[in-house]
Structure formats: C-alpha cells, structure tokens
C-alpha cells in the first residue's frame, strides 16, 4: 500500500493507483474530460491529452495529469492549489476559444461535459481569440458529426478501435488541424463504420450526436390519413425513467405505454412480442442446423445471432466469407415491422402505405437497419422511423408529458403480449438464454428443470458454456463488444476449434442496455449494471417466461405463419446478408 496526502488528507491506496482514482476513493472529485472508463468492461480512454485534471505535486516542477500519474509513497498532492486551479481554468478557456459555444441550440446541451465543467469552474469570459476549427458536417443514417465541436479527447477513437475493433475513426493530422476522422477524411458512411453509435454515447460534447427523427414522427402522428403504431424494445423500459429523474434500474413499462398513448400513437405494441417471434424462428433454425449436423450433412455451425444491427454490419464488412453462419432471422425490430405491415395492416383494414411503424430503440444502428432495402416492399419500409430512448424522452417532454405522473397501462394486442424470455433480449446473454429456454423444450419435449441459465448472464466480455441438451452437449458462447466478437469470428474462420454450436453477439457494453440510444451514462458503469438487474427482475416477474408459451405467438402461427421457418415466415421473417467489404481491384 502507498501512503500519500491529497489536499492534506492522508490516503492509503494500492500501488499502481493513479492520483485521480486515489482522490476519488478519498471523496475528492478531480474534474476530467478526456479520461473515460467503463469499470469492469475492459474500456479505458486515458490519453492524458486534455490537461483538465492537472494537480500540483509538492517537489515536482511541473503540474501532473492526475489521470495518468501513479501515486508514490509520501506524495503530497494539491488538487485545487492556485496553480492547479489557474492551469485548469486556462486549459478550459483555451478549449472554449476553439469551440462554437452555441449551447442554446446544441443537441448535447444539458448533457455536455464541457458545458458542465465550464459552469463548475465559473468560466465567465474567454480571453483568447483567434482561428477556429471548421469542418464540414457529416452524417450517416444514425450518427451526426459536427467536428467543429470536437475537443480531441479521442474517446470515440478508443471506443471505435479498442472496444468495437471497427477501425472507422482515427486521430489524423497534427497541430491545430488535428481531428478525429475516418481514413482520408472520407465520409463516415463510406468508412468501416458500423453505426453502433458508441462514439456518440461517450462523446463529452456535441461533436458526435444522433440523427434526430422526432419531427418525422410528430408529423406522422399529426397526419389524419396515417395509422401510426409503435413498438418498444426491451432495454428502453429499464432506462427511460432516468431521463425523468428516476433512479437507474427503475422499470417503467406501464408508464411508457401510457406515455406513448398520450403522444397519440394509434396502437402501442411491444418489440418484446416480436422478440418471442424471433426466438421461435431462430430457435427452430438452430435445431434444424443441429439435426442436419448430427445426420452428417454439411451445415454451417456455429450459428450466430442476428438481432444486433451493428453486429450484422460488422460481419458484412469484415467477415464476408462467413455470411452463411449467422441466423437468417430478422431482428425483432424487423420482424415487428414485417408483421405489422403484412399481417396487422390488412386485419385493421389499413393500406400498407397508410400505416406508419415507429420503433423506440436503445440503439443508433436500428436507424440504419430499417433503411436496408430488403426490409421493405417496393420502397415502403417495414419500419418507417426509429427513435432512441433519449428521443422518446425529449418527445414526451416537448409534449408536456411527465412520465412520473402517468398511470401504468398495458400494451395493445395482438402484437403486445410477451414473455420473460423476450425482455432479457436487452442484456448480453439474454437472446442466448431465451433461445435455450425454447430450443431445449422443443428439442427434448421435456420441461426445463430451471428456467434461469446463469451461465449466460453477467458482464464478462466473452462467456462460454456447455449446456446439457438431454445428453447432447451444446457448446455456446456469448460476447459483447465487437472486438470480442472478432476473436470468436477469427476462431470460426480457423475451423472452430472450440466446437461452438451457437454464439450470441451484441455490440454495446452489457448488450442493448448500454446502447448508444440510451440515456448518457457518462462512464458510470453502475448505471448499466442496474439496468441489467432490472431486466432480469422484469423477466422473473412475468407469468410466462418461455417464448413458445406466449399465447399470441401460438395464435399467430395458427392463424397466419403456419409453422416456424415455414414458407411464409421464410418470406417475411427471414433475411439475407451482403458482402460489404472493401474491394481491392488488382490490375495487370
């Protein structure tokens, strides 16, 4: 243990602790900007670049960056000495001198760490004037880049490269023209970006934000010729409350349904319903492949889940040789859209073109997924607009609806009823667990002795397990972070030495609960943990916890689809993938 004093307070911490962490343990909050950590999720951004955390260490000539300086025996640290304070303010003033300072119109206003820091440090004027950075704004269908606002903390770059291994962003140029950009400063949409949006989730300022669809949805709601239906993803209900001052981990399913109804949606449905549908299709597909494999036929194993659109984009760009491995099942968002427009619209006597399907997602990649050409009919998309959890909160606030004041209401039917298996889709391991619950019972004809598969739960980046399928050892793996998924994909490419049968992948930290469309967690991984606890609480409280026991799912197969992976479901609930890797043409 190392003994030191921080602001004259004696502190004892393990060797290798940084001044920043030691101070936080002692209850002293040194401000940071570039530093970012997701505790327990293998993510740390520590470039030591912003110099906001500078502290005075007695006996040292220069100030030290607290985030990147380890404690030493007998160290005397002053975090708010006149010199440290002066340096901190100067750094901030310099940063603000090259910042647009258009806080009133900025999408990030209220959630901006630079704004809060300027307020906290009492910056009242910026004494420096001079050239300002100017870049052309850029946008994909999910991510909006306004690099004039970039403070070069490089959190996005670390997320993109270390956590996701997407490799779309890098620090480029040097000196004043330094900026984080794709290769050759091409547009983000032309790069290896997969639209996971995690760069947006960690950006401290308004340089990276989402593509806002609120107005489109308001327009649809106010168009009397349109029937507007909405679906809400599992992870939204355990995070939306945070935007209304509730503690993280509050379950607001009923209030959310009420809020959506107040906003004027004609039908309030649940993506959980289509998550159950996904399990029927994906589970049946898995069993089909396993049966073929056991019969000695050539079949692609392991099967990968295909619910996460960032993950789909990732393997299409990086593993075009493995396109036959993922399940062909559409994501729950996609299945819901297909069911709404092909099954529900005719049932309601509404023309396909007059139905608008809106999804509420914890995700930015869903905004890109819905635009995939194959997920629609003659240019009419199955899902028209996707809003994030944050956008829904904004929309409710704009329309003077306070979630706290709302009663608990139910979803509409027939696309609203769901099981516990569906709600756990929101957390890493959840799709796997839901699939196992159904596949086990369908395969063995027996009732599961216990519904909970603890093996698939928790925050470990890659989880592996062997599940006893009535004598057959089913080998599974679960990964979040696409860097982890890449490791598994490389294994599969090299012949699947671990013999996996089924692999679940979600791109975001802890799964969809840590999605880029969720309320900003500002690096507090405890918030993501509490959302996960809520997901499993919601599951445990459901009367039905297996997808194949959902009466509405049973009914729709009887009435419409026939059987899982049958002809109609093949047509409407399954999809295909494309090679979207970079092309290198070699000329003679």
């Amino acid at each position: 243990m190392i003994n030191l004093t921080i602001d004259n307070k004696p502190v004892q911490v393990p060797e290798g602790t940084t001044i920043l962490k030691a101070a936080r343990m002692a209850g002293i909050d040194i401000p940071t900007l570039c530093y970012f950590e997701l505790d327990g999720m293998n993510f740390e951004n520590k470039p030591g670049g912003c110099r906001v955390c500078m502290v005075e260490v007695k006996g040292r000539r220069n100030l030290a960056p607290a985030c990147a300086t380890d404690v030493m025996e007998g160290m005397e640290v002053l975090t708010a000495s006149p010199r440290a304070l002066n340096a901190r303010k100067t750094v901030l003033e310099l940063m603000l001198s090259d910042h647009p300072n258009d806080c009133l119109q900025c999408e990030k206003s209220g959630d901006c760490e630079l704004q809060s820091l300027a307020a906290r440090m009492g910056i009242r004027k910026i004494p420096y004037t001079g050239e300002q950075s100017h870049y052309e704004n850029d946008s994909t269908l999910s991510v909006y880049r306004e690099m004039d606002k970039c403070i070069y903390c490089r959190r996005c770059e670390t997320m993109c490269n270390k956590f996701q291994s997407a490799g779309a962003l890098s620090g480029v140029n040097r000196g004043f023209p330094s900026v984080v950009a794709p290769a050759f400063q091409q547009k983000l949409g032309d790069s290896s970006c997969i639209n996971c949006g995690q760069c947006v989730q960690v950006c401290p300022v308004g340089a990276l934000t989402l593509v806002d669809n609120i107005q489109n949805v308001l327009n649809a709601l106010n168009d009397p010729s349109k029937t507007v239906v909405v679906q809400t993803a599992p992870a939204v209900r355990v995070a939306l409350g945070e935007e209304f001052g509730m503690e993280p981990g509050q379950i607001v399913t009923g209030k959310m349904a009420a809020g959506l109804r107040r906003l004027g949606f004609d039908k309030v449905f649940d993506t959980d319903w289509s998550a159950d549908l996904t399990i029927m299709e994906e589970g049946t597909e898995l069993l089909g492949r396993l049966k073929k494999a056991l019969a000695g036929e050539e079949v692609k194993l392991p099967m990968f889940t295909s619910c996460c659109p960032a993950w789909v984009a990732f393997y299409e760009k990086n593993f075009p040789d493995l396109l036959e491995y993922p399940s062909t099942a559409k994501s729950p968002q996609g299945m819901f859209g297909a069911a709404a427009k092909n099954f529900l619209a005719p049932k309601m006597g509404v023309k396909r073109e007059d139905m608008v399907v809106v999804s509420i997602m914890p995700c930015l990649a869903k905004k890109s997924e819905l635009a995939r050409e194959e997920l629609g009919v003659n240019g009419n998309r199955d899902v028209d607009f996707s809003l994030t959890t944050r956008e829904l909160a904004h929309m409710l606030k704009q329309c003077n609806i306070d979630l706290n004041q709302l009663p608990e209401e139910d979803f509409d039917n027939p696309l609203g009823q769901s099981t516990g298996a569906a709600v756990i889709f929101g957390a890493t391991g959840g799709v796997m667990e839901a699939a196992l619950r159904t596949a086990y019972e369908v395969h063995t004809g027996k009732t599961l002795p216990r519904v909970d598969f603890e093996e698939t739960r928790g925050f470990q980046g890659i989880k592996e397990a062997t599940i006893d399928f009535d004598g057959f050892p089913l080998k599974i793996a679960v990964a979040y972070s696409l860097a982890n998924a890449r490791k598994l994909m490389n294994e599969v490419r090299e012949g699947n030495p671990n013999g996996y049968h089924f692999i679940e992948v979600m791109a975001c930290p802890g799964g969809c609960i840590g999605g880029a469309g969720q309320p900003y967690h500002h690096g507090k991984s405890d918030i993501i943990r509490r959302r996960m606890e809520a997901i499993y609480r919601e599951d445990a409280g459901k009367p039905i916890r297996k997808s194949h026991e959902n009466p509405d799912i049973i009914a729709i197969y009887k009435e419409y689809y026939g059987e899982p992976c049958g002809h109609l479901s093949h047509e409407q609930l399954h999809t295909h993938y494309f090679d979207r890797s970079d092309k290198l043409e070699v000329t003679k």
Partner: protein
Amino acid sequence: MCQCADASADLRLARGALARTRIEKNMANIKLSEEKVNIIKDICKSFGNQSGEVINVLHQVQGKFGYLPAEVQEVIAHELNMPVAKVYGIVSFYSFFTMEPKGEHPIDICLGTACYVRGAEKVLDAFARELNVQVGKCTPDGKFSLNTLRCVGACGLAPVAMIGEKVYGRLTPDMVPGIIAEYK
C-alpha cells in the same frame, strides 16, 4: 432446417485476399497493379507483417513509390491487419510522409532560418507562380513538384533550393524562370 440458409448460399461470393466483391460501394474502387501490390506485400513481409512496424513499412514504401496514395495505404493496412484509418492517421501526422506524387524534378525550397531571413519565401512564391502549382502539389504534366524543407546545411548560400539532387544558392525571384527552363 430453414430454407433461408440455402437462399443465402446463393449469395455466397468468391473471396480472395485481394479480390473481394462489394455490393454497396460508395468508395472509389481501389485500383493497383499486381506488381505494385507485390512490392508492398514484400515490404510488409520483411517486417513480419507487424502493425507495430507500420512507420518503417510506410518509410520503405514511400521510398519505392515516392508517395503514399490512398490505395497503397489500403494494401498496407490489409497486410498489417490494422484499420486503414490508423494508417492514414500516421501518414497525415508525419510531415515526411506525403500522399502527393513527386514530380520528375522535385523542387524543395529551404525555409530554414538563414534562408527565410534572406527571402526564401519570395523565391518559393516565384516557383509557385511560374509553375502555377501549389506548395505540396505536382504539376499536371508530372514534371515538377514543389515542396519546402528546413535546412540543407548550405546556409552560407542562402536562400537555397534543391531540384532533385542539385543545389541552387543565393537565389532571387528573378532567377526562377531561367532555372525552370533548364528542365523543360
């Protein structure tokens, strides 16, 4: 078994390390001759295809080709198994690396202290005006490229320019047309 998997089998696309197909393509096609690709591959291989050696690889490849166009960086990224954004980040960081081709006669104007105080900037302007080319760029016919550098160790001759290996000293702007004429 779902038939969808069979449907996607139809979509199976031939894949070679360097001959990949791409359906939705926004980026310009990367085109490079097989000979050049092999040169790059050999250089990468000589460094064990280690991403940590990327600076050395870039140095050698620029030595061969004179510059590092986007497609060359793509191949290097592929060979070293690293994101091309990172390769570009390095190329754009170090002033030694260039994405612009060098002319047949590369012109370098010294902007070191001694040359600068003796009017190097005016000489640079004269070259740029006379060749109608921006600093850092190459003339459309590929004959001349114009760049600046810091000190060639001939401060006594300031201001100094180099064209290829040849050093020109005590320059004035009015000497520039005559010098260029030597190479036309």
